[in-house]
């Protein structure tokens, strides 16, 4: 359905995407995984026609470079940095993009309902919370019911509760049969959504694997056991969850999944929140 063939994007002497080739099958969910600067967003922007590139990207057999408008009809896009017109209401925003996409006006209200924003339609977009804006972006992406959803770091700016809600919506979208391509550097996001993961680093594709294999293939499952005063256990769980850690209770302490080079991060997070850590152990 989507095929990248030897795609290269350079900014001056800097190569952001280097000879990238992969394919996404219909109804597949594919994650572009990697650290900041890996070239994930650049690869997405090439697909959307926002950047010129060398190589070929085709969607449903159409060259994205030559038939950008037709290709974008097949895509719904949720950007990383949400850039809407802040003084426009959520409903007016949906109506505006519905007209641009050639969709009936009635779909605007339906799209807001679909993402749980029907009662916030009159609010200016600038007054919505980060989670609501992200849901609005998803609603706009689904306005024309496109077969492909493209998401750039969809939950990177959300707190834990909003992230869980948004991921649940994306799982529904995937179950509805959409093809999904998204960028992420969050393990739980990839595990929750992706069938296949493409690992990128320095603009190059370094690994392709099933999502379930990713932690083991990359050695991502370092686990830290933290011992805490019993009185602070609940608060520690809340603080770590809010900060985005995968955490579970373990007797008088907690178990936290971390990246191998970030084992001290949960301790620092608890320290910043005035939660005392009495001991720790790397498992």
């Amino acid at each position, binding site marked *: 359905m989507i095929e990248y063939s030897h795609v290269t994007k350079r900014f001056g002497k800097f190569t952001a995407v280097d000879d990238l080739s992969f394919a996404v099958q219909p109804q597949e969910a594919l994650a572009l995984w990697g650290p900041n600067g890996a070239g994930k967003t650049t690869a997405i922007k090439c697909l959307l026609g*926002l*950047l010129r590139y060398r190589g070929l990207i085709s969607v449903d057999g159409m060259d994205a470079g030559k038939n950008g408008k037709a290709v974008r009809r097949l895509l719904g896009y949720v*950007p990383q940095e949400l*850039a809407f017109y802040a003084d426009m209401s959520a409903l007016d925003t949906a109506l*505006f993009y519905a*007209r*641009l996409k050639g969709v009936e006006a009635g779909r605007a209200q339906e799209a807001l309902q679909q993402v749980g924003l029907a009662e916030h339609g009159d609010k200016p977009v600038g007054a919505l919370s980060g989670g609501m804006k992200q849901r609005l972006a998803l609603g706009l992406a689904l306005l024309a019911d496109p077969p492909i959803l493209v998401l750039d770091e969809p939950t990177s700016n959300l707190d834990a509760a909003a992230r869980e809600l948004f991921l649940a919506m994306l799982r529904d979208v995937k179950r509805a049969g959409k093809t999904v391509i998204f960028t992420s550097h969050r393990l739980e996001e990839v595990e929750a959504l992706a069938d296949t993961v493409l690992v990128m680093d320095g603009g190059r594709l370094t690994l392709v694997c099933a999502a379930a294999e990713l932690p083991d293939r990359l050695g991502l499952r370092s686990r830290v056991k933290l011992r805490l005063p019993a009185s602070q256990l609940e608060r520690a769980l809340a603080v770590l969850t809010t900060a985005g850690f995968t955490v579970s209770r373990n007797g008088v302490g907690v178990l936290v999944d971390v990246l191998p080079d970030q084992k001290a991060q949960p301790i620092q997070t608890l320290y910043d929140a005035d939660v005392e850590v009495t001991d720790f152990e790397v498992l």
Partner: protein
Amino acid sequence: MTSSLTTIWTLAQKEMRDALRNRWFLLYTAAFAALALAFSWLALAGAGIAGFAGFGRTAASLINLVLLIVPLMALTIGAQSIAAELERGTLSYLLAQPIGRLEVFLGKYLGLALSLLAALALGFGISGLVMVLSGSGAADPGAYVALVVLAFLLGLAMLSVGFLVSALTRKASVAVGIGLFLWLAFVFLGDLGMMGTAVAMKLPIASLFAMSLSNPSQVFKMAAILDINATLDILGPAGMYAVHQYGQGLLAILLGTLALWAIVPGVLAYLRFANRGDL
């Protein structure tokens, strides 16, 4: 085709809505309307009589007002058009939709041009009303309408220059700064620069007239003065030369030049926008 027109009109409507919320644009519009009213009233009161003399004085005042304010309005909103959206990130999101860059460009241009026309219509409308009420409106309504058209053409020319500046920059503040510099250059430095160059280089009169055509404000000024049946003698030797050299064809030359000033920078702005590969 219908879908393209719908897209362009949707974008134009949004631009008009934004113009109504743009404090600077509203301020310029209010200033233009208020000054048009004041100049009309003062010109008629100063003439002491109604009729053609009153019309001529009012029209001459309006020409100076247009020369000052219309380029400022058009250059400022034109300069913000693309750069401001690029800076806010809204342009990338807009272009990620199933619409073409030509539609985006035309929609923005149409919306701002109509906003500009509405602002001019308000100022000229108020002034026209004053003249009608005072009895001098019947003096030459055709010339008055032609003056409005010329002012709108000047506005389009400056809007296109503003769009070109906007398409060449990434920051709205830089674009507006360049727009203001160009306004100064066109409105104030243009006359002085031409006079200085003519004296220093001992330019022939034909070259002086050709130089005048390089400034849309000067072109508007000459066309507007011709329109109200005044003599171009007041523009000095270049004006006299133009009248003697081109006669009845002079107005067509000036209108064509003003139209070129609207088209050429506009096309260049679109080409830059369309080929921008760094969004």
